[in-house]
């Protein structure tokens, strides 16, 4: 029982990270109908900018951890957002209106480019950082001596994710940018006919997705304490799976999918085998695509348009 509780805590933490990345996939899919295969790499860039940010904070002598992390978070979100924005401008926008596969191929190209770019500029070896947030709450101890802990870092990840989700939901439902995004998602031509700048709205979607991926990147950097140029691939595929599981195009679906993938991965590692934990996500992806391609919260196509 205690062991299970611990795995659920670990799973929700991991799931938060996947959810933040999955939102980027699902938003871009919703608005331009393409899978941004470079999104995993954008997340990896977020992890590297966070890592560099943490080192810079150390050099600057900012020792109060909350302030340091807050500044790293903002900087990393801004820089990563710039990457997301540039990817759309350079690799996707010129191909808009071209055949369907073109941006997809371009995305794979961008993905390979970003991996190599980081590999060359930062080196191929894994980059470790010392733990920044230590300690935690001991929640309960079993008779056999197993202690369930919720580390401060896990709490930080989960709370930050919740805060971002609340802010994000507000942005989508209540602001003019959010309304413009939903309008573009539902009918781009009509959106332009009511005076919405569709290109700018699409750009902002990439910016938002990248900023959330940057947060995920920082979380992972802190959580695992080691990153390399290749982490975007697996995390990208798992977050993509999360988006498909939840229903690609659905924002609540991306969050639900992320949490489920995180939980499944944690439980799988705990009860089956750690070596095959990545197989779990792929198996789910195949099963969902086979049996429920619209995902858990995906919209059934019943509207008359």
């Amino acid at each position: 029982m205690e062991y299970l509780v611990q795995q659920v805590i670990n799973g929700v933490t991991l799931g938060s990270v996947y959810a933040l990345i999955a939102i980027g996939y699902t938003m871009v899919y919703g608005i331009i109908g393409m899978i941004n295969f470079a999104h995993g790499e954008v997340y990896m860039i977020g992890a590297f900018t966070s890592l560099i940010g943490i080192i810079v904070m150390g050099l600057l002598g900012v020792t109060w951890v909350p302030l340091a992390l807050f500044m790293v978070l903002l900087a990393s979100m801004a820089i990563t957002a710039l990457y997301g924005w540039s990817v759309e401008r350079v690799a996707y926008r010129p191909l808009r209106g071209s055949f369907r596969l073109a941006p997809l191929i371009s995305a794979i190209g961008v993905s390979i480019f970003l991996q190599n770019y980081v590999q060359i500029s930062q080196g191929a070896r894994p980059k470790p950082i010392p733990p920044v947030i230590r300690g935690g709450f001991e929640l309960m101890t079993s008779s056999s001596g197993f202690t369930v802990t919720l580390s401060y870092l896990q709490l930080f990840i989960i709370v930050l994710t919740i805060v971002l989700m609340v802010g994000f939901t507000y942005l989508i439902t209540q602001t003019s940018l959010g309304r413009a995004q939903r309008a573009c998602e539902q009918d781009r031509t009509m959106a332009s006919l009511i005076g919405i700048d569709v290109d700018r709205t699409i750009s902002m979607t990439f910016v938002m997705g990248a900023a959330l991926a940057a947060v995920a990147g920082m979380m992972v950097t802190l959580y695992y304490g080691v990153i390399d140029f290749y982490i975007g691939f697996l995390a990208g595929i798992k977050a993509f799976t999360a988006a498909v599981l939840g229903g690609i195009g659905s924002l609540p679906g991306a969050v639900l999918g992320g949490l489920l993938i995180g939980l499944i991965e944690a439980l799988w590692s705990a009860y089956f085998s750690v070596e095959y934990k990545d197989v779990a996500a792929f198996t789910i992806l195949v099963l969902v695509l086979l049996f429920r391609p619209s995902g858990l919260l995906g919209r059934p196509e019943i509207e008359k348009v």
Partner: protein
Amino acid sequence: MTAPMLKIEGLRASYGAIEALKGVDVEIHEGEIVTLIGANGAGKSTLLMSMCGKPKPSAGRVIFEGRDITGMTTHHIMRLGIAQSPEGRRIFPRMTVLENLRMGAVVTDPAHFDQDLERAFTMFPRLKERQNQRGGTLSGGEQQMLAIARALMSRPRLLLLDEPSLGLAPIIVRQIFQVIREINAEQGMTVFLVEQNAFHALKLAHRAYVLAGGKVQMSGTSAELLGNEEVRAAYLEGGH
């Protein structure tokens, strides 16, 4: 005579290799209702859309209130005082009626919103009843009302309507035509109306253009066209 509010000169537009407009000239003066009639595929919708930059004209000019808007981006054009209720209505299906109306007002001062909303609801009381229903689940007639109301929310000076009567019961058609007459008479709004229902459209409009094969075949006052033998034979026979 004052300069026309809208002046279209030699307008050409294509979809890939297909040229849908082959040099169209149209003039609309402030306060007029002008109707554009023509057979299926004549290029009527293309004319309304290409004025708004979709597709961009390949030749010719569009002058609105003295300003050359040819080649401008759609969202810029729609901020100049032109609104369109396009072919197929294009209601945002997963937004409520209220949200759809709000979307119509994105280019205007938010301070007007409540007042304009009230006006829209007075014009179409049905929309008020349905304000929290999703656009995609409205009936065809309700969607048409919403499309017109949404276009009006931006306080346009020139309103473009593409087949507002399509597929609607006669009673709804009459209601919609009545609304067009009212906004023209009471607010002085200029209306450019594309219609299949040529008889009704000519009864409503001051002047008319007949489009055929991407060119203006004929133009004149509504009375002239209603009396014209060719027009009668091609567009008015049967059903009326």
